[in-house]
């Protein structure tokens, strides 16, 4: 499975939502698509899955253009927030209807999952609670076993145990049926261990696309005496600062060299690790000041 996003832009009502985004994904792999609300995650995914057409640029799946290409679209499933208000079918029937269009659908697995999520097949879809509707969609998403499986903030409305179950099933099913899974989220602390790669979208632009650990290790925190911290970080990118009396702590984004290691010891400073969530928060925070 190979997805190629080539210089994709998307404009609606004269507002540019995605700016010239390019990346390549090659599975099997679990990828996290991260971005704040309104960053353009859903738009990006709906273009990826050919629900919308890019204003500029191309999207291909295994070198085939995806837009209006039935063969490509069949290989992808896009689970997103959906309004079931007028869906009078029962859960079981709804899933059966859906499964007809999914060549790899595993009915046995779907039923097992429904039980685990405690969603009855006999309930009317329109009457499901928000959490149950999300669970039903997650069941469809997983049981479809599409070569490209995409969950756009699929956990909405689910309580903590249901989310835990979802994360566990994503991993289990990925191990048994390796495929390209994309999970979009802003609940990073809960989900960061699931990802092998991350794509970060900031203000409609691609901020980074790389191995999760590699990205995470470019962020670190330096703590110590204020002057020494200033000395160490004078030519570095500081993304967050904290101060307590004469002690200063800064979060730095950039590579950490052997030379940095030596200076760290000389200046008697301490270096610590930052979580993906922390790094993400600080790197995507200054937004509003220079918004277009």
């Amino acid at each position: 499975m190979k997805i190629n996003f080539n210089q994709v832009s998307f404009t609606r009502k004269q507002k540019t939502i995605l700016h010239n985004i390019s990346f390549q994904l090659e599975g099997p792999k679990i990828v996290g698509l991260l971005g704040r609300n309104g960053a353009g995650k859903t738009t990006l995914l709906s273009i990826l899955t050919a629900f919308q057409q890019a204003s500029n640029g191309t999207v291909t799946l295994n070198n085939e253009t995806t837009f209006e290409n039935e063969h490509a679209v069949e290989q992808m499933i896009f689970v997103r927030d959906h309004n079931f208000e007028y869906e009078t079918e029962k859960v079981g029937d709804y899933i059966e209807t859906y499964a007809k269009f999914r060549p790899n659908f595993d009915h046995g697995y779907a039923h097992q999952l429904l039980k685990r999520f405690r969603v009855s097949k006999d309930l009317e879809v329109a009457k499901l609670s928000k959490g149950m509707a999300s669970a039903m969609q997650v069941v469809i998403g997983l049981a479809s076993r599409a070569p490209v499986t995409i969950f756009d903030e699929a956990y909405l409305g689910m309580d903590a145990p249901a989310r835990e179950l979802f994360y566990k099933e994503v991993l289990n099913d990925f191990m048994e049926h390796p495929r390209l899974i994309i999970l979009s989220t802003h609940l990073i602390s809960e989900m960061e261990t699931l990802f092998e790669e991350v794509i970060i979208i900031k203000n409609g632009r691609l901020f980074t696309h790389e191995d999760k650990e590699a990205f995470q290790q470019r962020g670190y925190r330096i703590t110590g005496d204020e002057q020494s911290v200033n000395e160490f970080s004078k030519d570095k990118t500081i993304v967050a600062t904290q101060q307590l009396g004469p002690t200063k702590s800064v979060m730095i984004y950039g590579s950490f060299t052997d030379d940095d290691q030596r200076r760290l010891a000389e200046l008697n400073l301490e270096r610590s690790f930052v979580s993906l969530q922390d790094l993400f928060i600080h790197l995507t925070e200054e937004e509003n000041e220079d918004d277009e």
Partner: protein
Amino acid sequence: MRPTLDDTRPIYLQIREMIEDEIIEGRLLEETQAPSTNQLVAFYKINPATILKGINQLVDAGILYKKRGVGMFVASGSKQQLLEKRKEHFLREYVEPMHKEAERLSISEDELHSLIFKRGGHPNED
């Protein structure tokens, strides 16, 4: 096995250290099978690629080796090797910082020695 991971260090390192601890503390014996990637994925709920990164480092270091079609095994001599590595680590991460701190607090060599023996329940103190 440690039940949870923390977010103060890279996860693959924690996976690696967790397996090292199992060997050092004798819960995982030489020439026996190490936990599989699948088991670790299910236990810690982390991406298999992250687990593999930790395991591969242990393979490169000669602590684990692969038996084709069976899985990962703990190499002979790995416990001794790990103990030596951890002693160096102990020196760097515990002993040296302790000396530094003692200096800062104006604790003399002799005083430091007696403090260690007192706290550590040295046989001479019995």
